[in-house]
């Protein structure tokens, strides 16, 4: 699931920016890092743009568990 990777991607992106700002890289490294960073930031944004959420309710039928869409009202934001 891409969402689980989100914080990893964000941390990587932060690290790349930090290293780049610290001037720790050679030209070749910074070229690679730049491409990688741009890719990471795109993926991060894409993860955040993912589709609408599901709201479900847990149902118990004896020992059997299942889920069903939850139709409770949300208050107006």
């Amino acid at each position, binding site marked *: 699931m891409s969402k689980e990777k989100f914080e990893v991607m964000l941390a990587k*992106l932060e690290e790349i920016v930090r290293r780049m*700002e610290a001037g720790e890289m050679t030209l070749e490294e910074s070229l690679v890092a730049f491409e990688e960073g741009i890719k990471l930031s795109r993926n*991060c944004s894409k993860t*955040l743009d993912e589709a*609408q*959420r*599901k709201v479900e*309710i847990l149902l118990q039928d004896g020992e059997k*568990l299942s889920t069903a869409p939850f139709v*409770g009202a949300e208050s107006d934001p």
Partner: protein
Amino acid sequence: MNTGYLTEIISVSALNDRIKNLLEEELPFVRVEGEVSNLRRPSSGHVYFTLKDAKSQIRAVIFKNPYGARKSGLSEFAVEEGMSIVCLARLTVYPPRGEYQLIVETVEPRGLGALQKAFEQLKARLAAEGLFDAGRKKPLPFLPGKIGVITSPSGAVIRDILTVTRRRFPSVDILIAPVRVQGSEAPAEIIKALSCLQIIGAADVIILARGGGSLEDLAPFNDEKVARAIAASRIPVISAVGHETDFTIADFAADLRAATPSAAAELAVPRRDELLDAIERLRGRLAQRFRQKMTQRRESASALRERLRDPRRRLVDARLALDDYSERIKLAAIRHRESKRRELAGLNIRLQYQDPRAIIKGSRTVLEDRGRALRTAWEKLFSQRQNRAEGAPAAARMAASSAGQRTPPSARKSKSLLRRGNWAPELPDCKNYF
């Protein structure tokens, strides 16, 4: 027996036995409410006391661990003198003494004081056990994929949580585990819900929530077993029970305590717009750094290239410089000569001013002027004398001499003197003329 009237004579023993049977069959279990007094704790470990109200009293005993495991989470609650309690008890008769008493199975605190006491006792006990230790707390996921919410499926609490999570991060899934949040069934339902969410494994964080309430209302969240189930959860649990000021045992056992259900929702999910901003900022910094790096490299490369100049260019430069210098030196020489020439001309002019010939010439002019003036004056005087001598011998003499020479000899002499430049104002024979 049903008549209630016994005709036969029976022994005391038999009577007590019958009483025992009657009572224990009629009242196998009772729930009795009263106040604890005459509390004794002998070394046996059993607890003896009298349960009383305003009008009556009954003896009671709590046997040490009478039937193994206990039913209620608060069963280990320690009774204290003067405390109001509700006991679940069997009524029992002790025939040797003809006495009856309550054998207490479970004790629940009653009233605010007792509930508070029970709460403090449980809190102290679980804290001593290390259940609330900071080291046990699990960190919340940064961005959960799914939030498990254990609460009542109706009411403001679930509505607030759904609203806040949707506002902050519209794509995080929610799984609601519906439970009753008060009453005697609540603890078991909460524990079951916690375990269901573990099994399904879909929730990355759990919010356990209910609105505020009295200490009695919050009892399920002060339940020892609920607290243990929360602590045992491998998924981080945020408790959001009651309002700002109400702390429950569940709050202490949870990984994070939120003041309200809305606050719990805020803690559970980050704000999507903030994250997008953060990513945008990072991307901006990355691009800026990259451009800077490129510019730097380009500049240092061109600086090096600058230093790697073609020697022929230096020759050309030197030639140009040479031309420049020679031009400049020529100009300087010309300028120098001009200035010396001007200086010389100035000196010449000043020298001419000092030429003695000019001075002499000037003086001569003055002298000649004066000479002329003198002759004019002399001739004038001479002609006056001549005119006077026409009637006298002197005049005749003078006329005779003037007939020979028109210009007096002294005048001729003075002329030559002047010419020589040696002006001695002596007219030696001038007085002879007078």
